[in-house]
């Protein structure tokens, strides 16, 4: 056990899996960098330094810098996966996923199915998402609902360094295509993370807080904000369960329904835009399966239906905040009191 950042946890999972399994390789734009002159090689490790230090150990054969050719290298990763490698491809920003979407939703997602179960495609696509970096509309989106919509893909949303290491290790060992979403604001977050390799299961949500009054169902960076709110409200006598989905596909429907039934009040916190999102999906799941247990309408805390704004002042309004989550929790609690009275 030692303190590791989200960045280090991802780096360590990659390094350990590359040591363990020679078929694991990684590729992406600026993953290594440099001209090859002494001192300059591998001084980089991606725009956010995630792959730094790996090239000297594993060599340029397994640590590949790609040209700016997303369709070609994501497609190549899919092809290499179908022929015996376990590529971890980095698509710098999820916003650019459109460039290579065919390779993901028509190819990677459907290889196994359309080859009668014969093709195995153990590819991982790591990508950065989320607002908060003053990086404008084309570098800040939360596009995980698009991938969750596609059968055949697995979609992973690590919420902390511990989660990131365990989930990435699982993603690399998994025999299906996995889209691994890293929130750019979390990279410097730090917590205790085991030094040895470990996996965290897909499709099993994690309760980061347990309480009786309200279930906050959330994912990714919003888990951290929801935990803060839960801790604060504990002092005010409102006890919250916080459900970290961990993966949106597969989705742990049972835990979501159970927590809704146990508390009767649900707030869904999702940084993505509100239409056709995890927030709407989870709300529908709960109303279909736990309607009788609900003491108040489900509240969604999401970004508005606009692109992430470039301007700092506007971006701050755009992103869900602890204050908004708290207001929503208080609202569902107040609602039930009215009904009882």
């Amino acid at each position, binding site marked *: 056990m030692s303190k590791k950042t989200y960045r280090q946890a991802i780096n360590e999972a990659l390094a350990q899996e590359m040591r363990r399994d020679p078929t694991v390789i990684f590729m992406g734009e600026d993953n290594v960098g440099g*001209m090859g002159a002494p001192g300059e090689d591998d001084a980089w490790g991606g725009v956010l330094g995630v792959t730094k230090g790996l090239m000297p150990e594993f060599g340029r054969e397994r640590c590949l810098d790609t040209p700016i050719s*997303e369709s070609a290298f994501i497609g190549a990763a899919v092809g290499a996966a179908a022929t015996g490698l376990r590529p971890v491809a980095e698509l710098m920003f999820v916003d650019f996923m459109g460039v290579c979407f065919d390779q993901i939703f028509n190819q990677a997602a459907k290889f196994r199915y359309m080859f009668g179960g014969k093709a195995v495609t153990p590819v991982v696509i790591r990508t950065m998402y989320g607002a908060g970096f003053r990086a404008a509309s084309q570098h800040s989106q939360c596009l995980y609902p698009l991938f969750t919509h596609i059968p055949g893909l697995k979609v992973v949303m690590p919420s902390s360094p511990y989660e990131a290491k365990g989930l990435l290790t699982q993603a690399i060992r998994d025999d299906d295509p996995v889209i691994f979403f890293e929130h750019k604001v979390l990279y410097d977050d730090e917590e205790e993370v085991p030094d040895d390799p470990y996996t965290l299961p897909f499709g099993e949500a994690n309760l980061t807080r347990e309480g009786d009054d309200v279930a906050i169902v959330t994912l990714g960076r919003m888990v951290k904000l929801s935990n803060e709110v839960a801790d604060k409200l504990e002092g005010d006598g409102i006890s919250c369960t916080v459900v970290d989905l961990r993966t949106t596909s597969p989705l742990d429907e049972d835990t979501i329904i159970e927590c809704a039934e146990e508390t009767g009040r649900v707030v869904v916190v999702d940084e993505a835009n509100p239409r056709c999102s995890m927030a709407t999906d989870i709300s529908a799941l709960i109303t279909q399966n736990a309607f009788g247990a609900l003491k108040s309408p489900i509240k969604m805390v999401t970004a508005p239906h606009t692109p992430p*704004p470039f301007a700092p002042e506007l971006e701050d309004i755009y992103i869900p905040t602890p204050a908004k989550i708290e207001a929503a929790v208080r609202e569902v609690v107040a609602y039930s009191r009215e009904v009882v009275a």
Partner: protein
Amino acid sequence: MTRIAEFAVEYIQFLDPAGKPTQDIPPHLAEAEAITPMYRLMALTRTFDAKAIALQRTGQLGTYASSLGQEAIGAAVGLAMRQDDVLVPSYREQAAQFARGVTLEELFLYWSGDERGSRYSGPQFDFPISIPIATQSCHAVGAAAAIKLRGEPRVVVEGCGDGATSKGDFYESLNLAGVWHLPVVFVVSNNQWAISVPRSRQSGAKTLAQKAFAGGFEGVQVDGNDPVAVRFAMDNALERARSGGGPTLVEAVTYRLQDHTTADDASRYRDAEEVETAKQSDPMIRTRRYLESLQAWGDEDEAALKEECGRRVQEAVEAYLATPPEPPEAMFDSLYAELPGALTGQRAEAIKENSDG
């Protein structure tokens, strides 16, 4: 065996790094009247650039992409174009944008995260800066198709980097432009780096200019630090496009003297010596030396130009800093032609939240 096609890439340079002509310069480009406007624009861009970096370092501007060392390309491209031509720029073409009439204040606003900075008061048909790499090459093709359809004598100029030429969007655009025989010029600023990936790992092709051949048109490589060479190539390409001769690709060879952006530290991945060597090919030096050799420029001119650039940039900074931030409803108001009713509630909420603090 029969040879059925042959291709050759020309390299054009008129001024060497010391400002000495390497060959006869066509008379209309040889004179001070042709060179001085480019030099002035390069100086203005460089002053803007230094100020933008200083503002970013002091928290008064967002992440910024410098064009240090690449000013000759923008200056020559921008001044070669006619006002009703269309520029479809990447983020490193400040000089071309200024030449087109984009204001300093607008670009400061843009880099501060204010979308109003892309609502250019000058050029009405130029596109805003494209950040997703090479996507603008497709837009340029579309704009050129529209111009061709209307039978107008206008040309679209697209700008991008060396890294951008690896993208499918770029190749597909060249193909479309070639097969439709469109009035478009692709200008590739080959600054040797795409963030941390060097040109040698970007493409196995000897030149980027030769990518044009697969599209069915001419590609030419020029010394991008020589404004005369860039201007010469642009004049030819624009004339060809305007007269129905179809597209051209101009690869302008230059060097990115600064970090990729202010969020980058290039010293971690590239050799300091390489940068030092590149500084000797600085476009400002050779242009000034050449003007001096014509007896058309001296220390007084230089001092006056410095003063003027400094003043203009300072005025723009003041105007930019005095601009009130966009109101919260701006998020909604530029989104659709008319805001759908379903969003009016969200808009009101954003305003309310903002005023609640």
